């Protein structure tokens, strides 16, 4: 399974999760986990998603998600999950 972590950071507003989820649904990218928190007054959301179900190229999707973020005024970052697993799991 090719898992990736999507993080969304920015000022909280209506419809952020909806926008990101819509993009993922349209591109057949399955969401495995969502959580959110507020860090220093900023909205932080993290999603673990599965790229195994989509035809979409990883880097193309990452760039398109960045654009979605720009439209709604948040920063969206898509990273392969391995970097977090390596750092936080032995």
């Amino acid at each position: 399974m090719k898992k990736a972590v999507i993080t969304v950071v920015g000022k909280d507003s209506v419809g952020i999760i909806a926008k990101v989820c819509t993009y993922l649904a349209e591109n057949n990218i399955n969401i495995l986990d969502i959580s959110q928190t507020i860090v220093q007054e900023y909205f932080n959301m993290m999603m673990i998603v599965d790229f195994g179900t989509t035809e979409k190229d990883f880097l193309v999707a990452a760039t398109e998600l960045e654009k979605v973020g720009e439209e709604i005024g948040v920063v969206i970052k898509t990273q392969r999950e391995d970097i977090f697993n390596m750092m936080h799991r032995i």
Partner: protein
Amino acid sequence: MINIQEVIETNQMIEKENLDVRTITLGISLLDCIDADLQECKKKIYNKITTVAEKLVETGNLIEKEYKIPVVNKRISVTPIALVGGACCKAPEDFVEIAETLDAAAKTVGVNFLGGYSALVSKGMTTADKNLILSIPKALAKTERVCSSINVGSTKTGINMDAVKLLGEIVLKTAEETKEADSLGCAKLVIFCNAPDDNPFMAGAFHGVTEADAIINVGVSGPGVVKTALEQVRGENFEVLCETIKKTAFKITRVGQLVAKEASQMLGIPFGIVDLSLAPTPAVGDSVADILKEIGLEHPGAPGTTAALALLNDQVKKGGVMASSYVGGLSGAFIPVSEDQGMIDAVRAGALTLEKLEAMTCVCSVGLDMIAIPGDTPATTISGIIADEMAIGMINQKTTAVRLIPVIGKGVGEVVEFGGLLGYAPVMPVNAFSCDAFVNRGGRIPAPIHSFKN
């Protein structure tokens, strides 16, 4: 599954604390490029480098995009050129031609530095070794990306004092040849004792003869991450301090291991080692000196500095070793003056001297690094400084190195600007008493007693 706090922690390290992969260095053996004809040899070298490293920069950039971690440098190290060019280079000028070929190959594949314009002369010099050393001033003046290193001593062989004497003169000539650029050539010349074969960091990288045809070595760095972690444990005892450094070093090194494996797989080239080093840059918040300050020193150079550095270096290794399947290279904290804002501040404040830096090199990698000294320093004095540093390496069975920059036309207190990752540095005073008679003796210093382990 990974949780949001862990994701935030990792991204904070990257975005705010300058965690990065300092270099992916591709080691390439040029032994199969040896030819009796110089032109043929140059052609083979150019073709081999540009073929093997064709996708290196592209791969580094791809990893950067997929993991959103900066891969700052993509570099190449090659077999020491004295060995490769020995058959066809009859004079120093011939070696300069090979340097230009290496520079051209580096530019073609887009790497910012290529190391291995080197000779291994820890016991004696062949004619080729000597010609290469004599060619260094011209080679470094005529090329932009080629880096040179000379191994002049080891615990097993002792110190080749003839080479040390010669290199004092070569350092000065290199400074003279590049005086228009604040003697920048010397920033690309490292003199080693116990040089490792698999070091990914410049300017001292070369691809040792014990290595395979091609290999990927990675150096990661995050002094800022260690500094930030230590901010949370101010006033705590040494146990807590050391545990914190160890845990942080583990996390940093894991990223290096991941990137090394990934690059190795993408390029189809075996993974060599991860170098566990804390390498600073002139950027604010990317400083080893700041870690020393956070440990409790007003400035690096204050009493306690050597002890603080010793524990830092040791904890970085202890944390890092478990994080990677193969560890090698220099693996330790770097203390270059010009590349670390905190070190520059310490020199300016009068806290840090050349002598204290020498003491610090006894407990960390690598040595007297990126130190600007007055341009009128005699060659024998430079040789004396080199000999001192080599002796530390020889006796302590560790790598030590010297990268001094005698800045032609400048004196103590003036500032030299190297630009980019090399930073800037105030010219530091050098002990003015002579060591002429010592350096001029010639010959070599025998290997120390504890090297006889057979």
